[in-house]
């Protein structure tokens, strides 16, 4: 292979990892939520809030030292240091922010038993609006002055990349092999029976919702801390794609992982191929941007022809209202 091809492929893979990781994080969180029988369509909103709070935290935790002060009180040359600890604190902030928004969803759907779909959609709208207004309050209209320095990597990749990859087997094991996972799946499968057997359906679901929110928050933080700087609507619909990804992966963590990287590669190709085939630029772009959605539809068509697959993997009570007998 000539060096150019190698460089191209390595760029492609790097870009794919950047695009796949937030998808994977958000999808894994929502997978647990859906396994417990809750459909939270607010992933996009929780990602946005996680992104904003992660960014604000990072901005505040980084140490800025002024190196040159020509005019008193106005720094003309500064050094920004963003340590690993600062980075971890920013991630925790992002996860907490996501979880707080998720808690609102949990309160409305579990305590007040509102409709999952309506509240989820509302959550996305709320997340977008809230981050737009808080963001412009915090950073001013022009964000360019606000920058977060790079942070250390772990084995050549961002910490969250490893975390997301590790989360795949951990979540699989937790769901399939532990009692906690069994309880979550049982609640998602048949909430009435689980309730009759003495399990607190709403409480179990609430914890799952919080977990999903924290994961979505991390996904948002990854986008703004690793990939691009904060701007309004920075998640560009990744939350929705994460929801599609769960269907694509038929509620299986490993398939969700595969799906996230397939989607990531497709998107990365879209960005890279411009250079290789300038003549086909527009056609390629359109095709590749829509590819994840077309893939998801194709997979849905295929799995819906196999009822056994659905019965075995889809949580039967997904999105259904639960009214415990009083």
């Amino acid at each position: 292979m000539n060096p150019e091809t190698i460089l191209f492929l390595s760029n492609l893979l790097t870009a794919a990892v950047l695009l796949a990781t937030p998808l994977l994080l958000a999808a894994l969180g929502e997978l647990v939520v859906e396994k417990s029988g809750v459909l939270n369509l607010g992933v996009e909103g929780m990602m946005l809030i996680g992104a904003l709070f992660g960014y604000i935290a990072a901005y505040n935790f980084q140490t800025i030292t002024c190196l040159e002060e020509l005019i008193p009180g106005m720094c003309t040359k500064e050094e920004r240091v963003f340590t690993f600890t600062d980075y971890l604190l920013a991630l925790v902030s992002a996860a907490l922010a996501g979880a707080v928004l998720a808690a609102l969803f949990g309160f409305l759907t579990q305590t007040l038993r509102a409709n999952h779909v309506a509240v989820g959609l509302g959550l996305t709208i709320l997340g977008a609006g809230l981050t737009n207004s808080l963001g412009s309050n915090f950073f001013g209209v022009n964000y360019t002055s606000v920058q977060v320095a790079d942070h250390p990597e772990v084995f050549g990749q961002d910490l969250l990349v490893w975390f997301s990859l590790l989360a795949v087997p951990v979540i699989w094991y937790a769901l399939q092999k532990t009692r906690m996972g069994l309880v979550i799946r049982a609640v998602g499968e048949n909430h009435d029976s689980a309730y009759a057997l003495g399990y607190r359906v709403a409480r179990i679901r609430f914890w799952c919702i919080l977990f999903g929110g924290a994961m979505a928050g991390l996904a948002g933080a990854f986008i703004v801390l690793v990939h691009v700087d904060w701007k309004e609507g920075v998640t560009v619909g990744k939350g929705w794609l994460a929801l599609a990804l769960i269907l694509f992966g038929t509620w299986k963590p490993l398939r969700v992982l595969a799906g996230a990287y397939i989607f990531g590669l497709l998107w990365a190709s879209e960005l890279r191929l411009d250079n290789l085939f300038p003549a086909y630029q527009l056609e390629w772009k359109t095709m590749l941007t829509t590819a994840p959605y077309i893939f998801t539809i194709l997979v849905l068509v295929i799995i819906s022809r196999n009822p056994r697959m659905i019965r075995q993997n889809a949580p039967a009570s997904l999105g259904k209202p639960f009214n415990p007998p009083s």
Partner: protein
Amino acid sequence: MSSQPALLQTSQISKAFGPVVANENVDFEVQPSQIHALLGENGAGKSTLMKVICGLQQPDSGTVYWKGEKCTIGSPKVARAMGIGMVHQHFALFEGLSVTENIAFSIDGAVQGKALENQIIELAERYGLMVEPKRPVFELSAGERQRIEILRALLLNPELLILDEPTSVLTPQEADQLFDTVRKLAANGHGIVFISHKLKEVKALCDFATVLRAGRVVGTFDPREQSTESIAELMLGSRDISTQRQVRHIGDRRLQVRQLSITDHDQTLQVNNMDVHAGEIFGVAGIAGNGQELLYAGLSGEQTTSDHNAIEINGTYAGTLGPNERRELGAMFVPEERLGHAAVPQLDLIDNVLLSNIANKKASNKGIVNRRYLSRKVEEITTLFGVRHAGNKTAARNLSGGNLQKFVVGREIIKQPSVLIINQPTWGVDAVSAMNIREALMSLAGHGSAIIVISQDLDELLEISDRLAVLHHGTLSEARAVHDWNVEQLGLAMTGSTDTPGNAAA
């Protein structure tokens, strides 16, 4: 009493739900190693007694003794801890989970994974309860699901095991397997309560029986030493089969069924010969779960048959026709399930009237709905049948059970149908509403309609029917005039104890 105390003893248990007395001073006793049959009609109070024993309900008065000691069973958890296990008639299983997972979920977390799987296999082998631990439940038959329920109960090591109508969902082969299991359990010292309607089974399996009727114990005996006839009579009691009734004029044949057989999943329906005439109420008796739903579906056209000539409505063959086409032939239908089948819960009364009047030009002409006409119909129905409602635009689900039942029955009756097929007309309806509905049906027959009433309420059928047939295990018996039946024959036919069920010979 003998020196060894009974495993479980209830003394003078009473339980009432509002005005309905479910149990009245019930004494009930189970010994270790005993297979004790609990017999009674629907609503005789068997379930209530079992719920008290399982801690699901608290008695109004009376005492429960466990191994001779007085105890209070406050919750199912307490019951399980004491050693009382129950296998419910309707399984509470998680379809998407495997057999092992289902069992793991319902017992406490002490045993997990491989150890639990081994324990399940060991228990299954000991009692002949073949299961495959790794298979997901949705793939399993009713018999296999029941085995999971039994295993689930057995893993808690109960000393008393209650089986609530365990054979109602089983094939005869599966039932035989179950009996073997039950005998093994009893041989190991477990006390068994076996709730059933099927006297043949009880005679073959049980060594003691208690019969409940209207909430009271009416007999305790060894079922092997009693004739099926005498047990059946004890269950049903002495009924008034009155011959004094308003004589209706029986007219021409409106509905004819010949050799109708329908299979739906593992249920089958066989009706060899059934004629219903104008001015006649044709009753179909039978214990719940013997094919009433399928008979209704077959007659209403919700389940069609490939034999077009099997059903004839008003002189036209209708075997392959659907419900609306049968409506056009003059037949109207009232299903058992009020909410969701007879009426759409979320729709208002006007729309619900429209739904069974689609073919009516006055209700909808060229696709345009005449809500004013339908609103008048709602007024008519509610006034005529005394349906209490908060306006014509009330959603159907907001009506009480009795009022909604009067509404859905009235909706069909005011059309003065040539043939009316009605399933469980007064199920779960208060006494006054039930009386109104029965009177309305009789008056409709008096006006010359042919009516088929499928009901579990034998008293109701004896009161209103002209002729009566019994549905058992999906097969409809020959029809006889009501006064040609006696209680004993009815009991035998309903419990499947008679050897002449079919009407092929008739």
